[in-house]
């Protein structure tokens, strides 16, 4: 009887595994999706997370199946219930070591009851709440899709870390600007490594932006630390005479690989100090109070507190970027002022830096900008 029970044990573990796998997989995959969404993981990362979660779910289901049905006593009890054997197997198993007439009768009875039954007689079962499981996973997938694409996946949204604003994502798509509270990646250099350069056809590409004392663009190290994104709107500042000051302040070598440094300030902000080479820091501090480390960043702060950037190349890249700064995508200087104020509050800037920035804002305001 023990040999027969052993065969049934393997079958029962398999059945239990198949029964529990959907729920485990649903929980793991949903968790992975949510975690990937919260963490802003790239597409490859999401794929890896899904595969890993599926593996974890399989292991968990197998572990649970083994623990719930793995013991031979449990197997006997389960078979008693499934085949309607009236506790024959469980009793026979328990008293199999007894050497009396009743125990031998019970054992013979159990053998007879189990004879003719095969492990295949134990059918696979669907989970009790399969519909709910499938529905739940579908809901999580849909919700993950509705919340929005991750910053790494979207080529039109830019992780922004302005001098005043700190962590914020400024979506630049369609010429409109919107703020999202999604935190920017901690490794700003890596996250902003890919920049998009406006080409004459309106396509976006990648172009390095070099600081004054930065190495050449073909230097891999410098490319990693200084490459910035140049959105389509980057050239619009050239149309605004007030932005010429910012462009001058930026002192970005014109025509440096045709790069546009326009939005760098609002995307990078104070984080630039950490990403820039240490040797550049004094230059940046001279202008920005230590908040940026590259000229491209410094040029931003000469504009409206990092809200607006400037470009190294003042020439427009597209017609749509020729709009005035006072009303571009609904962002008025007053709104920019408010935004900078709220960013100061939100980011808990150090007191000296906050004073500096406030003074800077007041100076701009008194200059008639807002």
């Amino acid at each position, binding site marked *: 009887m023990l040999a027969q029970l052993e065969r049934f044990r393997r079958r029962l573990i398999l059945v239990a595994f198949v029964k529990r796998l959907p729920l485990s997989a649903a929980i793991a995959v949903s968790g992975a999706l949510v975690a990937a969404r919260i963490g802003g993981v790239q597409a490859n990362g999401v794929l890896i997370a899904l595969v890993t979660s599926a593996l974890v779910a399989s292991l968990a289901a197998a572990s649970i199946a083994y623990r719930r049905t793995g013991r031979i006593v449990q197997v006997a*009890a389960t078979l*008693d*219930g499934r085949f309607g054997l*009236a*506790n*024959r197997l*469980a*009793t*026979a198993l*328990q*008293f199999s070591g007894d050497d*009396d*007439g*009743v*125990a*031998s*009768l*019970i054992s013979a*009875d159990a053998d007879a009851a189990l004879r003719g039954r095969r492990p295949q007689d134990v059918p696979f079962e669907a989970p009790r709440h399969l519909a709910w499981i499938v529905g739940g996973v579908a809901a999580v997938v849909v919700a993950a899709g509705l919340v929005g694409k991750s910053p790494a996946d979207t080529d039109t949204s830019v992780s922004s870390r302005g001098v005043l604003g700190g962590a914020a994502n400024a979506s630049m798509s369609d010429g409109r600007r919107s703020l999202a509270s999604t935190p920017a990646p901690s490794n700003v250099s890596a996250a902003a490594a890919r920049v998009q350069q406006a080409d004459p056809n309106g396509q976006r590409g990648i172009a390095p932006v070099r600081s004054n004392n930065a190495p050449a663009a073909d230097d891999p190290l410098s490319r990693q630390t200084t490459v910035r994104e140049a959105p389509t709107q980057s050239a619009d500042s050239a149309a605004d005479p007030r932005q010429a000051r910012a462009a001058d302040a930026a002192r970005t070598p014109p025509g440096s690989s045709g790069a546009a440094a326009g939005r760098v300030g609002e995307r990078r902000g104070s984080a630039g100090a950490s990403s820039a080479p240490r040797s550049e820091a004094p230059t940046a501090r001279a202008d920005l109070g230590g908040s940026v480390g590259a000229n491209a960043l410094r040029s931003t702060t000469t504009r409206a507190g990092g809200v607006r950037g400037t470009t190294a190349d003042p020439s427009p890249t597209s017609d749509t970027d020729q709009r005035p700064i006072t009303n571009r995508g609904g962002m008025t200087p007053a709104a920019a002022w408010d935004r900078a104020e709220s960013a100061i509050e939100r980011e808990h800037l150090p007191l000296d830096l906050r004073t500096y920035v406030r003074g800077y804002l007041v100076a701009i305001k008194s200059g008639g900008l807002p």
Partner: protein
Amino acid sequence: MSLAAADIQTRAAIFRDCFGRLKTEIGRVFVGQPSVVEQLLVCFFCQGHALLEGPPGLGKTLLVRTLSDAMNLQFARVQCTPDLMPADITGTQLLVEGHDGVRSFAFQRGPIFANIVLADEINRATPRTQAAFLEAMQERRVTVFGTTHRIDEPFSVFATQNPIEMEGTYPLPEAQLDRFFFKIRIQMPDVDDLAEIMMRTTGEEAPRASSQFSADTVLSLYGLIRQVKIADSVLRYILHLVRATHPDAPEAPAIVKKYVRYGASPRAAQSIVLASKATALLASRYHVATDDVRNVAVAALNHRIIRNFTAEMERVTAEEIARGVLSSAPAL
């Protein structure tokens, strides 16, 4: 005592045959309600005592008398009244004169020394008299004037009580109720059974059960029932049921928490185990199954569940509570 498998099979066959013939023989006199007859026989073969509850005229006394007739056992009937004294049950010392003219005290055995004792309307006896049954039922012996007298086996007390007429009665205390193996409710027969009863009892000759077995046969079957095995899982199922009758136990269902003041004692579990073993033997098994437990649990639990005031006000019976416990217990 360990017996060979063949011997056990033979005795089990005798038990089933004996049980079936008794059931048939009782059925010749007592019409209908086969489950009541089965419960009574299971109780008897488990050396238990039963409390038969039902309105007057449903054949409670007839059922017990028929059982003793069918088994050729000594039968005694005690009609309990408020003036019934303990000595009327246990017996007493009488002054007797010997052949040589010498007078001395001799113990005169009471009706409790019969094999089957029918205590009719036991709740009409005073608590003092009811207590006289206690030692006999539990210890199977009687102590009179400092002398202990053993009661011969087989011995079972079958008491009856009327659940309707409560005036002038002394409800049995919980301690005494607990000593009854089963409480068997006798229901009103349906029309067909009533018609059969009329036919049998209003004719020229009333049917009588014929003797089938001797006391020795019964005694030999007692040990067989106790040899039936019970698995741990089934035993724990029984204990779960018993614990679930206690309102403060974590296993207690809502109906128990709401309506029960005190639950069943370990004697209830003993009764369920023994009765389940007998039921298993009747089903040609040598081990207890959960179905056996379910078949006997209500009869073993319902008189051991002490209801609270809410249950009495809402007329929730102990049997309903016991069924609620059964239905809420997890299946094995």
